[in-house]
């Protein structure tokens, strides 16, 4: 039972993904219906529809129009159970369309929603016909069912079935909350396999997208191998991010100093830019590389925001700008040679 609910929910979801908008409605109806009714434990054919078998038989032997249709279809279908199914499909189509219009009526809501839910399943679409239904048939629904019959006829004529048909009626804009899944020749058409197949199609489409994204996955066939590649790719990307963030964290103390150079529009003189290259290397051995590089590059600019808090203690920017040497000298650890060099560089600049 859960399988049926699940597969139904999935087929309605699939319809939603493909662009229909009343998915919510369909799902709610389905769940409500499922809660209130107890299906038979017989074959899924009748279980869905909860008709006693005599009514089901009555549907099979329905009107002449349907019978002729059934006769016509029997030539083209392989299995024997199909001929009546198309007739049932017709009636289901008619009544499910009706149900959409009349779904607001609470008394017949259970019957209607059943039709809504039974629509996706080709082989089992027997309408849950109660006697009051025929009078609800509206001309637009007849038009739609006519269109659908036409599609079916065309399908039968060519002997091939369209895999999925979303019933778009050009006359009215109403979106149906489900996808019509046509079974291929020789494939099983019970609800489970149809829903399963719809799900599989969705998954395969997504896997194809992923294959395009991950390099080197185009040649690989088989979901498991593609999954392997995807996992490897994600892991390698995460490792790269890790590595890059490590690099960035080592560069980090200098970020602020370099920011203005990155973003500044002004160009620097060649002398100035060459300078750091000469002065820096001996400075780096101290481990104070960042201080020296900044001093060399930024005599004019001191973009010292909050960064220097841990290094120099709280100081205001103006102080730095005005007396850079003083502030640097106030720095305790291993700043011995720093002031000397700073004065040197200052003189040379």
């Amino acid at each position, binding site marked *: 039972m859960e399988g049926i609910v699940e597969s139904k929910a999935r087929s309605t979801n699939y319809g939603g993904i493909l662009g229909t908008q009343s998915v919510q409605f369909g799902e709610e109806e389905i769940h409500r219906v499922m809660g209130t009714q107890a299906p038979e434990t017989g074959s899924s054919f009748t279980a869905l529809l909860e008709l006693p078998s005599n009514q089901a038989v009555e549907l099979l032997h329905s009107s002449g129009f349907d019978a002729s249709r059934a006769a016509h279809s029997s030539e083209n279908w392989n299995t024997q159970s199909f001929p009546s199914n198309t007739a049932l499909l017709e009636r289901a189509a008619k009544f499910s369309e009706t149900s959409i219009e009349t779904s607001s009526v609470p008394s017949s809501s259970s019957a209607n929603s059943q039709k809504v839910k039974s629509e996706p399943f080709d082989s089992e679409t027997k309408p849950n016909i109660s006697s009051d239904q025929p009078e609800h048939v509206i001309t637009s629904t007849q038009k739609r069912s006519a269109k659908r019959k036409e599609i079916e006829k065309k399908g039968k004529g060519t002997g091939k079935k369209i895999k999925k048909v979303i019933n778009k009626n050009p006359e009215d804009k109403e979106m149906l909350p489900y996808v019509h899944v046509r079974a291929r020749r020789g494939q099983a058409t019970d609800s489970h396999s149809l829903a399963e197949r719809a*799900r599989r199609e*969705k*998954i395969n489409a*997504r*896997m194809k*997208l*992923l294959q395009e*994204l*991950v390099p080197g996955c185009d040649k690989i066939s088989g*979901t*498991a191998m593609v*999954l*392997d590649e*995807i*996992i490897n*790719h*994600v*892991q390698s*990307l*995460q490792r*790269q*991010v*890790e590595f*890059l*963030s*490590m*690099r*960035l*964290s080592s*560069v*980090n103390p*200098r*970020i*602020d100093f*370099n*920011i203005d*150079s*990155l*973003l500044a529009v002004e160009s*620097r003189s060649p002398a100035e*830019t*060459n*300078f*750091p*290259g000469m002065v*820096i290397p001996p400075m780096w051995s101290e481990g104070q*590389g960042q201080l020296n*590089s900044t001093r*060399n*590059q930024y005599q004019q600019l001191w973009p010292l*925001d*909050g*960064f220097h*808090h*841990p290094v120099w203690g709280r100081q205001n920017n103006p102080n730095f700008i005005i007396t850079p040497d003083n502030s640097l000298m106030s720095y305790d650890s291993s700043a011995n040679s720093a002031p000397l060099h700073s004065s040197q560089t200052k003189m040379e600049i």
Partner: protein
Amino acid sequence: MSTLESTPDRWKTVSQQQIYSMKLIQVLRRTDRHFTVRETADRLLAVSSGGRTRWSRAILSNRLSLNMMNNRRRRRHKKVRVSGEIRMKKKEAFDRKTRVLGELVPGCRKLSFSRLIDEAEDYIAALEMQVRAMSAVAGVLAGAGAGSLPADSDKLGCNN
């Protein structure tokens, strides 16, 4: 109607990479950060995602994904080998791989396969953008430290 914003293609645009790089530099300048560089980069990526994806929300809700994953005890996988059928083995391998993927993508452990694929796709695209942007930033900063100052347009145009 899906615009570019809701597809994984949004991570391929150069402007997205530029924005990310700029913001990353801005954030890294601050001293009151409570997260490591890696974490800030990931959080920034999640923010750039706009909250539409599950992995981005999972990242922003206190870093559930990667740090805690290493500390978790591996649950004993339940035995599936009741029969030697090939199908069982395939399904088992499939389930294992799905679980691994779910653990790699943040916030996607208990997710249906199709949703997982969706999330993974967006996550991969975002990661690739992150790698490009961060390598550009790291390159520029390292280069700037040595004194050569290429114009910012280098980084902006970088789209390898």
